[in-house]
């Protein structure tokens, strides 16, 4: 860094002179634009234009469109142009509210998040605490293997877990049949994990905890590194055990991090799609979660984009409510300086 500064003055003189020369031409359009930007302090806005265009056209505009479509009748005839698009008021929403599949998918999403979120947070915390106490090499090794799980693409991870739990040659049935007190091979030979909701979501729970705990562990570890070791030492001298030290010293200090991790986990697990799509697959409506049901309403024949948009808006709205909490806790932590 120092090199850049000290090496600078000698070289900087001549290009600075040439830029002066360029500024001397008052007729240049570039110059006039530059003066205009400087006079009205437009520089930050100019820098934001590309990101605003990209986010605006490809994220914000579709969000508004979903809301608009949810009040219309928009299906295949409207896409092809055979029939005009008409406004239908709240009828898509009332259709959803009387749809048992909507309620079942919503229930599945809620229960799934309620199970996976604590499991991920607890396992991630335990691994984070372990990483903090391991030696340098061992800690790097465990953290690297955990991060490999995190970096495994959702598609690969889903396919691998599906194979692990496959009735023909998968390893899960074999392990279950060997475990004592679970019914042995009579019950587990050829057991299908994806034929009904409960085993399918058990498999998905294992998958999402496996993919999700490394992020929690690394975040907790980063938080632990910021806690001065004297705090733990003095607590230990006072005779506190590990459990008490965690709840009385560590947890209160990491609370802000936990709040963010909790909200992020809820958002991810409630809205999970790729893994559900690959493990449960299209064609099993009893096992859909909310995201899956919405996607299938939009893209299986005959497509009903309007009902799906209403479902998508409900899903977005639920996630936005949680996001508000996430934004508030981020702001409170001084993230927006």
């Amino acid at each position: 860094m120092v090199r850049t500064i000290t090496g600078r003055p000698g070289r900087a003189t001549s290009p600075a002179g040439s830029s002066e020369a360029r500024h001397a031409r008052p007729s240049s359009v570039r110059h006039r634009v530059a003066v205009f930007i400087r006079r009205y302090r437009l520089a930050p806005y100019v820098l934001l234009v590309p990101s605003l265009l990209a986010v605006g056209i490809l994220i914000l505009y579709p969000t508004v469109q979903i809301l608009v479509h949810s009040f219309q009748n928009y299906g295949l005839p409207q896409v092809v142009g055979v029939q005009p698009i008409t406004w239908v008021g709240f009828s898509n929403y009332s259709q959803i509210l009387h749809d048992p599949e909507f309620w079942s998918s919503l229930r599945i999403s809620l229960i799934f998040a309620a199970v996976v979120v604590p499991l991920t947070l607890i396992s991630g915390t335990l691994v984070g605490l372990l990483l903090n106490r391991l030696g340098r090499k061992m800690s790097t090794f465990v953290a690297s293997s955990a991060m490999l799980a995190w970096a495994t693409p959702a598609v690969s991870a889903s396919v691998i877990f599906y194979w692990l739990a496959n009735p023909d040659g998968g390893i899960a049935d074999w392990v279950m049949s060997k475990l004592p007190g679970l019914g042995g091979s009579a019950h587990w030979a050829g057991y299908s994990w994806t034929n009904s909701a409960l085993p399918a979501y058990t498999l998905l729970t294992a998958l999402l905890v496996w993919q999700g705990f490394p992020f929690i562990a690394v975040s907790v570890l980063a938080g632990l590194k910021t806690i001065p070791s004297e705090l733990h030492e003095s607590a230990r001298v006072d005779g506190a055990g590990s459990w008490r030290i965690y709840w009385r010293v560590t947890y209160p200090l990491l609370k802000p991090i936990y709040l963010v991790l909790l909200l992020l986990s809820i958002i991810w697990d409630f809205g999970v799609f790729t893994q559900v799509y690959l493990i449960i697959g299209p064609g099993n409506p009893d096992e859909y979660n909310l995201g899956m049901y919405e996607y299938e309403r939009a893209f299986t024949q005959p497509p009903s984009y309007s009902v799906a948009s209403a479902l998508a808006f409900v899903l977005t709205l639920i996630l936005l409510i949680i996001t508000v909490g996430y934004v508030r806790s981020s702001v409170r932590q001084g993230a927006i300086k």
Partner: protein
Amino acid sequence: MTQLALNRPARSRRPRSRRRSARKAGLNALGVLVALITLFPIFYMLSTSLKPATEIYSLTPHLLPSHPTLSNYRAVIDGSGAPDPYWTFLKNSLFVTVVAVLLAMVIALLAAIAVARFRFRLRTTYLIMLLIVQMLPQQALVIALFLDYKSWNLLDSLVGLILVYTAFALPVTIWMLRNFVAAVPREMEEAAAMDGAGPYKVFYRILLPLVAPGLVATSVFAFIFAYNEFVFALTFLLTDTSKFTLPLYVQYFYTRSGANWGAIMAASTLFTIPVMVFFLIVQRRMVTGLVAGAVKG
């Protein structure tokens, strides 16, 4: 470990150190166990991909293939099992990912400079918008985007994927890069400006070299997001299999190979290994970036 020593000052040296090493061995064993459980699914994918069919469907699963074979890889690489050879999909994936990452980095760096170096009206609004946008569910937006892409003729097009990957990578990358830009001391830029360097020169000579590590860390996130992305690829790439990216190639084997698990695991390995190698190379920066981006906000 020093806490333990403080706790029991009366004991003699030897039992204490024995106790300490026993405790350390226990922790290390626990660490190895966690690593083994974590790595097992990845290991089993590799192992299955090297097994011949007779071993894959045996009733008692074996950890390692007793007669390792590359026939599964041959089947998925040369294209006899898929409509095109593996290289087509790898090329598509890398093209889409690299272009999207480069675009996202340029756009994100500009935005990060704006929010880290300037105080302006709507700055807070902009930052909060990024936080919110990051959380919008892709499987919801994809409905509207599908209809838009249909009318913009961007279905079955890699350009369409690049655009959407760039946009969806932006919130996180801007948010992360902002911290890296803010970490560059403003005095350095001011000193350069005093010496007569114009804004472009300050950018190229001071800011860019100092933000470069941050750009690398951030681009890893964008890379992993774009390379792994499934929902948009599934929805936008419909009929033209020569445009498929690697996630769809894996899914193709998964849904149509008739449970040929050797081939599916081989395809999955070929999809996963590049991102893992890439990831291991940049891992150290990755963890720093993850922490900087996620925990600090």
